[in-house]
């Protein structure tokens, strides 16, 4: 494996609320350039929090209480992501790294058209594109995610949930970053569109060489598209390995539980509705 593009080292994040929640608990992940790293795990286990930490979008009461995140583009000097500030941070986000939020359906500005929101990305980040170039790029991006260009003049509320999600994916692709963090980007997409978009992302990836951190609950999909996969459970990364290995020889109880629970479309239904009880925190002295 080549030198990692992003390396998350022993990261711990807490929400300092009345009763503090440790949302990310000593997690270490490395993502190589051009790699797709898949992240799955229990609902509420800290996946989105991890994604926010990587893009430096955490807001109080969230606090990074330990660990480091380093960013090393093509043999340049490592950059301490947690130390970035002001202009550097702005440049880092969206042109080096971009993100599709889990709430993407709700993230578009309700009072502006799709076109102006896509074009704004180019304006905000001084892409140096002319007006006509921006228009052309906006149309091209929408085509990438399979939306009719006539929706350029639509307002967000005029689009379906899945269409809004696709617009957000288009925006994340706009500046051709080196890493795209996608937090459950396809929850509102039918499997056909989902597959088309993932193929398209894969094609762009081999063309432009960006890496992807892909978060989803759809384990079947994750195993299929990812090079490596990590499984999280209440803040901890309980297992990581190649897709193959996770699929064929899962080591952790929870991973096995997830794989077992997955209903097969044309096969039989598994034993349903069993709740997984995480015993680890009890065993560990905290």
């Amino acid at each position, binding site marked *: 494996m080549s030198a990692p593009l992003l390396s998350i080292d022993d990261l711990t994040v807490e*929400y300092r609320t009345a009763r503090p929640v440790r949302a990310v608990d000593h997690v270490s992940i490395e993502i190589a350039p051009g790699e797709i790293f898949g992240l799955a795990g229990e609902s509420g286990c800290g996946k989105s929090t991890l994604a926010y930490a990587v893009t430096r979008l955490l807001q109080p009461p969230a606090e990074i209480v330990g660990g480091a995140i380093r960013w090393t583009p093509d043999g340049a000097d490592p950059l301490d992501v947690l130390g970035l500030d002001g202009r550097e941070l702005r440049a880092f986000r969206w042109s080096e790294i971009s993100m599709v939020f889990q709430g993407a359906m709700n993230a578009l500005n309700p009072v502006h058209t799709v076109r102006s929101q896509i074009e704004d990305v180019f304006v905000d980040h001084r892409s140096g594109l002319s007006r006509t170039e921006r228009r052309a790029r906006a149309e091209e991006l929408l085509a990438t995610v399979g939306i009719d260009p006539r929706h350029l003049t639509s307002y967000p509320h005029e689009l379906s949930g899945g269409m809004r999600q696709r617009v957000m994916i288009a925006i994340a692709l706009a500046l051709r970053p080196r890493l795209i963090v996608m937090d459950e980007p396809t929850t*509102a997409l039918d*499997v056909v569109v989902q597959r088309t978009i993932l193929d398209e992302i894969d094609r762009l990836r081999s063309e432009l060489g960006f890496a992807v951190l892909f978060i989803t609950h759809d384990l*079947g999909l994750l195993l299929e598209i990812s090079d490596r996969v990590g499984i999280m459970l209440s803040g901890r990364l309980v297992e990581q390995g190649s897709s193959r290995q996770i699929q064929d020889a899962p080591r952790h109880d929870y991973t096995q539980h*997830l794989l077992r629970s997955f209903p097969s479309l*044309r096969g039989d239904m598994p034993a349903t509705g069993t709740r997984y009880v995480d015993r680890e925190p009890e065993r560990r002295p905290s």
Partner: protein
Amino acid sequence: MTTLEVRHLTKDYRSHRGHGAALRAVDDFSVRVTAGETVALVGESGSGKSTVAKMAVRLVTPTAGEVLLDGVAPARGGRADKRYRSRVQMVFQDPFSSLNPSLPIAYQLARPLRIHGVVRSAAEEERELLRLMEAVNLSPAKEVLRKYPHELSGGQRQRVAIARALAPRPEVLIADEPVSMLDVSIRLEILQLLDDLKRENDLAVLYITHDLATARHFSSRIVVMRRGRVVERGRSDDVILTPVHPYTQLLVRAAPDPASGPFAVDLQRYERHPEVTLGALDPDLDTWPEDAHWARDWRDDDADRSLVEELTGLAAASR
């Protein structure tokens, strides 16, 4: 025993600039959901599923068609709406926008309890809230109740939204992608919960989803939509195991299913399945046997031309 019926629903959206043709989001859509049964609604993104859901709870006024509860069209007006909604509830598609950011979870769950007179005292309310939280597997319940939506993860919000819809003890639940942000294990648990309610309380569920596997296993019938129209309907197993319409075949083929062999697309499948009816017009709810397998005839339909080409290509490639 409650039956929700929507008949010949059509919804046109005028484009906002006022010019250009109106967009037909839903085109002559009919479905019947009876007590104790789940009907799954699946289909293309943007095919009009959420619009159907919103028309069914009377948030969106249909351009044409009607919504019937137990065979009668409910009256209009505030009171009637309230009565209707104590019986018909909905889970919204997007849990990030369907919870009020400025109100705590407890308030948003307690309101429907109070409005519809499910609880009479504060103690009862407390008990009912905790019961709801337990039902959707949100713990620690007391703490989650105190939180605001932005302090919850996506899947946790989704479960709050489900709890809110179940709070008034509805007879019909319209669930628009209710479990899309949950891990498999909790997803199955919630669907199991709906299944139990269905069996014990005669709940009728319209389950809108992109997850074909749960659609098949948790519902008795599946309706497939594309571009505002129904393209295939029938018993779940029939639709998933012997899909006839090209779009349904594409769907089944695209769905991840590592446990089974690859799905073979076959445009001529209908020829080997004489029980499948092909038709250009939607079957009439009154005369049509509920369980029969129907598909829209695509053979000389322009809207499906590209679909057929794509499928022919796929079939050739797999041969």
